[in-house]
């Protein structure tokens, strides 16, 4: 009897979770739609062409470009590898691959809706600053260690 009650209540939890998830489906579809648009409009070549060769400027550009770009993390590694071959600074490439996974301009509306606008703004500003600092710190540490 107890087993039956437990089973019933897990099914209830599952149903509750599925409904909660389903209610957010229009939002998720919107983000997926925006990502499709972005990938169709912004080519890898266009992203690569944004870099100037100046390490300071490129670190900022890398962070912004990575934050705007969407797609699998693996794509950022491949693109990052290509950028390094083109002579773009390792600071910029590190910022780019890190921002790719930690920042997401496209998903901001959904994050603000679910977790609050203020939290979203604070979190993304902190993630932006952290990305630049982590990139500089990583390359600097490797330089020191040799």
């Amino acid at each position, binding site marked *: 009897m107890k087993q039956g009650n437990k089973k019933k209540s897990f099914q209830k939890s599952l149903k509750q979770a599925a409904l909660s998830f389903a209610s957010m489906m229009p939002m998720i579809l919107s983000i997926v739609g925006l990502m499709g648009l972005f990938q169709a409009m912004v080519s890898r070549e266009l992203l690569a062409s944004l870099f100037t060769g100046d390490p300071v400027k490129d670190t900022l550009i890398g962070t912004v470009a990575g934050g705007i770009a969407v797609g699998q993390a693996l794509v950022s590694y491949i693109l990052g590898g290509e950028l390094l071959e083109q002579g773009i600074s390792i600071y910029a490439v590190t910022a780019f691959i890190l921002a790719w996974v*930690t920042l997401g301009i496209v998903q901001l509306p959904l994050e603000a809706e679910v977790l609050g606008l203020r939290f979203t703004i604070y979190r993304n500003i902190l993630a932006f600053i952290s990305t630049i600092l982590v990139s500089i*710190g990583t390359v600097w540490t490797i330089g020191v260690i040799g």
Partner: protein
Amino acid sequence: MKFRGLRLLSVVGLLYLMLYLYDEGKMTIAVKKASTLFGELMLIFPLIIVVMALITYYVNPRKIASHLGEESGLKGWMIALSAGIISHGPMYAWYPMLEDLVKHGLKKGLIATFFYARSIKVPLLPIMVAYFGFGFTLILTLYILLASVIQGLLIDQICGRNKKCD
């Protein structure tokens, strides 16, 4: 059930319509890209729903507050870091679960930590090593962990205990 984000979905639909009128070929590419992405997400959705259900079923809301709430301490940070590292799929797929946990007392700093720690992709680490070297990957990973915790602490400071970020 009340659907959320219908207005945003209408705007995105309108953008697709505009792209269709401007460049039909690009619109077709965008639809294909979005469909592929959605197909990949379909594999992750059931996992997230099951995780949400398991949390609701097994974890008492009061326990969520003690493990991940204001008084969670070191344990809370460790859980947020580990969950960030092992979680798969895009960030937005996890929003419904986080929303549920916030209702049960999850503190906002741990969300920031969870999100930033997600940049460590364990299955992709060997690929990162191949592209950028072992030393680079190791140091970057350590700094990401550190930055994740610092961000969480700062968010807690900024948002404060009087729920400024709600």
